[in-house]
């Protein structure tokens, strides 16, 4: 079965550079979520989109922005990168974003800022 695809899997950037992470949800899923997971930490919600509109916002820094495109894929844009941005970034998708709907996670993009 098709899963959530994230690219790239690994990314190394220098401080103050920009990075773009991509997420391709499961076909027909209309909701995408982004999470940040630091080493040894639980996933922290960043932002979500439902039907191409931002649906909720968590602890996403102002330096980050995201959007969901007409084909439902999503991109997380990160600018002025800081060392503390080094983390595993997960994208998840679900259908209709219902409260009782589980999310399906991608394998994540490991971002290392040096």
């Amino acid at each position, binding site marked *: 079965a098709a899963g959530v695809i994230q690219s790239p899997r690994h990314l190394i950037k220098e401080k103050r550079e920009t990075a773009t992470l991509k997420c391709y949800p499961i076909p027909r899923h209309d909701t995408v979520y982004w999470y940040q997971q630091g080493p040894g930490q639980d996933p922290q919600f960043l932002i979500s989109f439902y039907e191409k509109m931002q649906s909720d916002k968590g602890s996403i820094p102002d330096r980050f922005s995201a959007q969901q495109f007409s084909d439902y894929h999503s991109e997380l844009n990160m600018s002025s990168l800081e060392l503390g941005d080094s983390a595993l970034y*997960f994208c998840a998708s679900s259908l209709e974003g219902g409260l009782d709907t589980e999310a399906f996670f991608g394998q994540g993009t490991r971002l290392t800022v040096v």
Partner: protein
Amino acid sequence: AQSVAQPEDQVNVAEGNPLTVKCTYSVSGNPYLFWYVQYPNRGLQFLLKYITGDNLVKGSYGFEAEFNKSQTSFHLKKPSALVSDSALYFCAVRNFNTGGFKTIFGAGTRLFVKA
């Protein structure tokens, strides 16, 4: 505030023995509760969920969880642990007060199953 607590950072169990990974929650209103498992360098995988109905929920890989409203708990259980169950387990909650599009995760519990 909505929150999820996993009181144990780590659980150790011998293969073949029953395992329990604890989770308690604090939400106003009815909770929607989930368990996810994370293997090294992998994304979270859904295990099971409680929405309504029977308090005992059965999920993937032989796992089950019991919803206890009076104790606000949703402990994950398995009758007989396997070495391959060793992973990081996250309890999560959603309800109307978290918004439909945000899942609150617990801090995670690392399960070690010894052969």
